[in-house]
């Protein structure tokens, strides 16, 4: 298969099950809401060492936020409900509670709940106030600029992590251009985040390592500097590979994001030396979800 002259390899990208939640962070204006969202989703690129994967999903207009202020929706993904709750409470406590003028609300409904305000309220040292509005409990914690409002809990849902595609280009600059186009397009897709810096990872990993203490290590098959000393998967002429990683609430969300991203990369990439698109295929060892590139692009 080719798109715009770019080879789409007949392979699949592997992804794995996760659990996810969405939070809505509001603030006095967009600037502060975004600062809090960026801060709380920092150092959340991979569950391998960050505890969760997180990112800004989209902006929410004041008409659509619970308190009528500008909002940012963030998605957080983790491997278990317990770990997700730990990360949510820590990150909101350190990055949203601390950020001037912010409030935080649940961004999804569901049966399975994780703590939000119910844990953070203790910062109020007894001065916190619980209030039920429209059937939802909110905690009002006195802080130096007024009150921090946090909804009692948020829901979590089953999700999919690690959806991906790899951009293989003649040069690093060409790979970057293709990825930037892909990101611009994929950021318009709801229910997904791309947790790595700018949405892109240059240190794609394979499962396992020669060192027993490591569960993942560099994906040597895609490292151009190892082309002559390892079993490379890089086509001739490819000088750089970058990986776009996608977490989504459903398989369909990831498939949609992959499709949009690959099409955008191929549209821009041809002018910049993009040679091929492939998927992070680990021989079925990584995850139960397989996104076949040709099917995604049908």
């Amino acid at each position, binding site marked *: 298969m080719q798109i715009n002259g770019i080879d789409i390899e007949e392979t699949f990208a592997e992804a794995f099950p996760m659990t996810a939640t969405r939070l809505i962070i*509001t603030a006095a204006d967009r600037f502060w809401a975004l600062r809090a969202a960026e801060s709380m989703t920092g150092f959340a690129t991979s569950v391998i060492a960050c505890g969760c994967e997180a990112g800004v999903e989209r902006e929410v207009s*004041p*008409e659509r936020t*619970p*308190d*009528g*202020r500008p909002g940012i929706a963030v998605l957080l993904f983790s491997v278990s409900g317990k770990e997700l709750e730990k990360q949510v409470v820590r990150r909101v406590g350190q990055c949203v509670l601390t950020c001037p*003028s912010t*409030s935080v609300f649940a961004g999804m409904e569901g049966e399975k709940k994780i703590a939000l305000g119910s844990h953070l309220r203790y910062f109020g040292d007894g*001065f916190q*106030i*619980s*209030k*039920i*509005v*429209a059937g939802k409990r*909110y905690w*009002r914690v006195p802080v130096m600029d*007024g*009150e921090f*409002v946090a909804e009692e809990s948020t829901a979590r849902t089953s999700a999919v992590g690690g959806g991906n595609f790899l951009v293989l280009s003649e040069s690093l600059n060409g790979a970057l251009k293709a990825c930037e186009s892909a990101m611009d397009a994929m950021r318009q897709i709801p229910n997904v985040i791309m947790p790595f810096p700018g949405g892109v990872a240059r240190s794609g990993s394979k499962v396992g390592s020669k060192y027993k203490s490591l569960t993942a290590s560099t994906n040597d098959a895609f490292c151009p500097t190892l082309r002559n000393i390892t079993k490379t998967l890089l086509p001739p002429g490819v000088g750089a590979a970058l990986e776009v990683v996608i977490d989504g609430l459903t398989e369909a969300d990831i498939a949609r994001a992959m499709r949009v991203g690959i099409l955008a990369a191929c549209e821009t990439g041809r002018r910049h030396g993009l040679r091929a698109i492939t998927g992070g295929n680990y021989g079925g060892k990584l995850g139960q979800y397989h996104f076949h590139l040709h099917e995604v692009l049908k």
Partner: protein
Amino acid sequence: MTSLTLLRKSSNCGRLNLTGIVPNKLLSLTSAEMETLPIESEHGSTPLASQFTVCDGDRDRLVFDGDLSLCDHVAGGLLSGDVHVLGPVGNFLASGMQGGRVVVTGSAGNYACSSLRGGQVTIDGDVGRYAAAAAPGASRGMAGGELLIRGSADEFLASRMRRGRVIVHGTISAGCASRMIAGTIVACSTVAMPLGYGMARGTILLLAPAPQQLATGLAGFTLPEPCELSFLTLLLKEVAAHIPVPQQRELANKPWLRSLGDRAEQGQGEIFFRQSQSPPSPSLEPWLR
């Protein structure tokens, strides 16, 4: 299908206790079984049919038709379904109610919703004393649910109220929110003093111009201070749908002042009010009808 209707017969058996005459209890009964249901009166037990004409219908919605001002505990124990009263009701309306919906087109006696725990109650007329307040012998009043009073509320509204929301369109007499434990009261019209005496927690939102005592400092409460809390927007947004249109315009006005008390009891209850009219906040405009 029409609603199950209980038509009040003229009677001289004194006050009746209608606890348990609610849709969730009548669901599995035949019309004949309903007619023989015992209800308590001042003169002992009496069958339902001696006091009401039973017109069978949809069991999810029970209609009481007639003057029930001598009937207490109307909708007592309601868990689900609707109870509609076409006329006034006596004391202890919706006692022990945990869910469902009650609408009273007339007025209600004393202790209305005093032990309400969930569901929605709307009273088109006035309510007597101790609405949403602790009933005799109880330490706490209303513990959940929503009470909307379109008329006025007599003394000691929400005294020792524990949880839930009360909205009053008309005037509120003295003693409102005394020893209030928690919950929310929205007053659309004037409120007589004393207000919030011994208040521990809870929120009172005054939409009418505040009494002079509040503006200058209510006994036991902190001096009013301007506040711009995002929480208020959440509350106002919800309240907007339940108050008269003129007051809806008031919601958008700023700034709000807040007093905390009753400090004599180490209380942290809060009274929100405004001193004067000011232009509506544009951010609230979209929610106003």
